[in-house]
């Protein structure tokens, strides 16, 4: 399995990242070398092994349905680049 410049451009677009042509070539090479490394795993015989759906073999970290205090609004909005009337203010979007 390998990725092309097109794949890199597509993934960059999904992540809202912009790269120069030079960077695109560099990332394509780097991603391919990572994929090649990971491909080693396919040498292992996994027939009869259930595919894992999570990373850690740990179960059921659950909490009771009890209210804990929320943050003060001032605190909530403290890091917002822009705010108004208690709202986060963002560039106009359409649904």
């Amino acid at each position, binding site marked *: 399995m390998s990725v092309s410049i097109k794949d890199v451009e597509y993934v960059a677009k999904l992540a809202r990242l912009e790269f120069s042509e030079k960077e695109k070539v560099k990332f394509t090479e780097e991603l391919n070398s990572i994929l090649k490394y990971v491909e080693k795993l396919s040498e292992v015989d996994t027939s009869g092994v259930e595919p894992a759906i999570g*990373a850690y*073999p740990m179960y059921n970290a659950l909490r009771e*349905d009890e209210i804990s205090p929320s*943050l003060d609004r001032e605190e*909530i909005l403290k890091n917002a680049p822009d705010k108004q009337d*208690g*709202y986060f203010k963002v560039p106009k979007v359409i649904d």
Partner: protein
Amino acid sequence: MDFEVIIGLEVHAELSTNTKIYCGCTTEFGGEQNTHCCPVCLGLPGSLPVLNKKVVDYAIKAGLALNCDINRLTHMARKNYFYPDTPKNYQITQDETPLCRDGYIEIETEGGLKKIGIQRIHIEEDAGKNVHMEDSSYVDYNRAGVPLIEIVSKPDMRSPKEARMYLEKLKAILQYTGVSDVKMEEGSLRCDANISIRPEGSNEFGTKVEVKNMNSFRAVERALEYEAKRQMEAYERGEKIIQETRRWDEGRGETVTMRSKEEAHDYRYFPEPDMIYLSVDDEWIESIRKSLPELPDARRRRYINEFGLPEYDSEILTSSKKLADFFEECVNEGGRPKEISNWIMGEILRTLKDRSMEIEDIKFAPGHLVKLVSLVDKGTISGTIAKKVFKDMFETGEDPEKIVKEKGLVQVSDEGAIRELINKVLDENPQSVADFKAGKTKAMGFIVGQVMKASKGKANPQIVNKILTEELNKR
């Protein structure tokens, strides 16, 4: 050409928990903007989500009520997309391992009972709310992290009407289980639809179109009717139906393009690394199964068998748990089932609808309705007066006996008094008497009306009829 319409629905229901799905912030509605938030639901770096056990309980409860299998081992998934209402830039939901799958709902169609399959039910978090203004958009994250279940049906519905019936039944079942307050107007129940058409007899599915922004059951039915017609007309013109998302415009009564497949999202789901497995054992599932109340279908069958009610009455009475509870309380207080059912399906539902009220807004007690009916039975008041008393009772919540007494509405059954009244009316209306004598039986109705009017509706109609016949024969 004849077409077959194929519909599948995706329904989101907000769960009635006290706290959000991954943090302890309150889910209470209507707080000041951005006051029900914490590092977890704001997606601040370093915070970790912890699943609310009640969300799992409720989702399993809904799953069991909808005849689903419960997945013993599940994992949350990360769905990636950029939109300001999602502070983390991803939603924690479920992908390959939904908590519940393979269920069904039964609906009553003209062709008999029909099963509509449920493909899956999964748990996930709600997004925040965007407010769009002239210059900018404003975001309130109070709803971000509120627990939802998404219920995905199989493409088993064959008409917009079936889609509405499925939704009504789904709403009733969720309401009975108490896991959601299922108010479509308030957004605690939301519905998106997938719809395609194909020529009758064909086995292949047509290109499906997703329809969004339908805010009532009626809107769902209307939007799907419009969309089915649009697709059939396009097909007959030889046009290709494009796979796209369309928005229902309630005011214009049509669906309009939102985005086509080329712009469709690529969500890049992967197992949520901030969370671990959820394992549900038989004991947990069985304890929830035991807590299930009697569901609408079972209750409807019981009304037919136990109370001898017609299918139609039973269906309407059990469509809402609160309505069914009200009916049963009346019966427990000694009301005759069919009579109570007539009052509920007549005066009560009509008045509630006229005033856009719900059954829980009713001021009078079930026992008051039973008393009102028995006042008619005993002949204390007439049926016409009963409707007047009902209006008062509805308004004030007062005891009907008290209303009857205070307003002097007791029916007059005193033959002497009625005879006197009748003779007065007959003396005043010689023309009607002459008409009656000439064989115009209609005149009788007019005279009865005049007598009732003169008694202010209080004369006992049976006695009026009897004496009037006697008096007319004397003339």
